[in-house]
């Protein structure tokens, strides 16, 4: 069970909704994934033009909650405004704080993200910030009242996988809130590995949206996440690490 704020989810896979070729493909992928939580950028809300709007079709899905995100915001002030508007339009208590001022590499701004997350948590949002894989920032955000932290596995859309695995392990070790890998995953096996490491969930967008068969890939990611989680719970066999020293270290014990 994945618990975010006071809301529980059976699925440990969260989907991003940008980058799909069309709305119908997106909906099929979401359904195939079994996800119960999707994130949608406020900038993709378009009430005036229904065929360009992502919010309304997602809102119709049963058993799927919406998490507006602040993608496009350059700083904390813009992100807070986007979050408030997103809550008003979607009715969702969730917000994914996403502030990446550089439009090329899209790396999250830790300073603005912290400021926005703190303000939004105090305002009653269930806040999930997208962050660099930084164990100190993760604890700061936990202290600020976030419901989870979402460190990146690699740059958005890069398919770089879990290049930050060592840092994510440190985040997991000391976190009291769920840790969700967001961005970078290319293959379901990487989602499985993230879950084996002890992540609580994975958020995937590009790898599914850009696949030849998005619905097929969505299903594969769901299986990857579930496989990794099951393996984690079953207890992975450790790597053999038992070396017997040639000169005994414990001879002084008699």
């Amino acid at each position, binding site marked *: 069970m994945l618990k975010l704020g006071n809301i529980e989810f059976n699925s440990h896979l969260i989907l991003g909704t940008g980058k799909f070729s069309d709305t119908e493909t997106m909906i099929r992928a979401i359904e195939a994934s079994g996800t119960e939580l999707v994130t949608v950028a406020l900038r993709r809300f378009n009430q005036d033009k229904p065929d360009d709007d992502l919010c309304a079709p997602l809102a119709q899905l049963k058993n799927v909650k919406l998490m507006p995100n602040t993608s496009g915001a350059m700083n904390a002030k813009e992100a807070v405004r986007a979050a408030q508007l997103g809550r008003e339009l979607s009715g969702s208590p969730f917000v994914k704080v996403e502030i990446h001022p550089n439009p090329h590499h899209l790396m999250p701004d830790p300073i603005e993200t912290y400021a926005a997350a703190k303000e939004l948590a105090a305002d009653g949002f269930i806040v999930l910030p997208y962050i660099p894989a930084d164990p100190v920032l993760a604890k700061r955000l936990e202290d600020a009242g976030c419901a989870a932290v979402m460190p990146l596995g690699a740059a958005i859309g890069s398919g770089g996988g879990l290049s930050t695995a060592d840092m994510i392990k440190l985040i997991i070790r*000391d976190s009291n809130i769920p840790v969700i890998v967001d961005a970078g995953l290319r293959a379901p096996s990487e989602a499985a590995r993230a879950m084996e490491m002890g992540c609580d969930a994975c958020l995937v967008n590009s790898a599914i949206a850009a696949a030849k068969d998005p619905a097929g890939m969505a299903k594969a990611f769901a299986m990857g996440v579930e496989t990794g989680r099951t393996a984690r719970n079953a207890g992975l066999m450790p*790597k053999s690490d038992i070396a017997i020293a040639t000169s005994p*270290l414990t001879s002084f014990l008699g």
Partner: protein
Amino acid sequence: MDTPYPTTATLPDWLDPTPWLEQSHTAADVRHALGTESPNEETLAALLSPAAAEFLEPMAARAQALTRRHFGRTVQLYVPLYLSSWCSGGCAYCGFASDRQTERHALDYTSVAKELDAIKAMGFEEVLLLTGERCPKADVDYLRDCVRIAAQKFHNVAIEVFPMAEEEYRILAEAGATSVTMYQETYHPETYDLMHRWGPKKDMLNRLEAPARALSGGLRFAGLGALLGLSDPQYDMLALYRHARHLQKTYWQAGLTISFPRIRNEVGGFDAPYPVDEKMLAQIIFAFRICLPDVPLVLSTREGAAFRDGMAGLGISKMSIASKTTVGGYGDAGSEEGQFDVSDARGLHEFCDMLRSKDLEPVFKNWDSTYR
């Protein structure tokens, strides 16, 4: 009968070790624990189990490798100074308990300064100031003044005293204290109640929560430990581990250290109900190093020279030496009877020579007063 202190506490869920005590462990479980990448309570329980006693050598190898990775080839040194033997506590195992027929002393401020000068002249930069339980002869005001004197001379001033309120810890932090050591003695509620016969120390939860209050009050480091021998070591060590992990997750900016004080029936006047021998103590220390790879692990002069020499760098990364457990004893002042018998009576130079012979560097200064 009404008592101002709860006599039997219930451990909070985050500390209770019982789910891991109910499991039995095989050699395969120990091998599994030795190779794990993410140690947890299950790992520690397996490494503390009787089955792991057959794995001391591979545990030592792993403990040494982890110690080198996180601390290099160094051992940090400190020395204790007992300020006072006055005590309101009734600890059944302690030489300074309030019913013991022993002459009581408390160093006056002039003597404190002289003792600290003598310690400083030896080369130490970290001093641990100790008192008994709260009493008028050694209260918070006295401690504050002693800390101030010490902070003028030493970069790192640690205190091992009675549990206080957060505000009192803040007073000591502002006076210059950086670290607090607070051994729970035992985490087992019934044993705790039995061993602490009267006085404020009867309040188990007050003591349990003291490190958290100290960290909230501005102390940077907290030292934890349980007095081995009082209760089932597996119970106490699992609870100690859980206590440390809880503090790591909650006070994530704080530094922790863990010590392994042990009642030794052969050198004291108190027979430990659960005696821990050297092999078991080594197993415990290896297990902690494996499960908490980056936490400094401390061994005092309660242990003998041969054991300390063997454990230096083999899990242990911080040690006291040239210690007196009498009140004072480094300068002019000094009482005759100590809180416990020192088993490693070597001088500082001899001890440092030993460390160097093992390719370990003795480190005296690992903190700077600029940070307070």
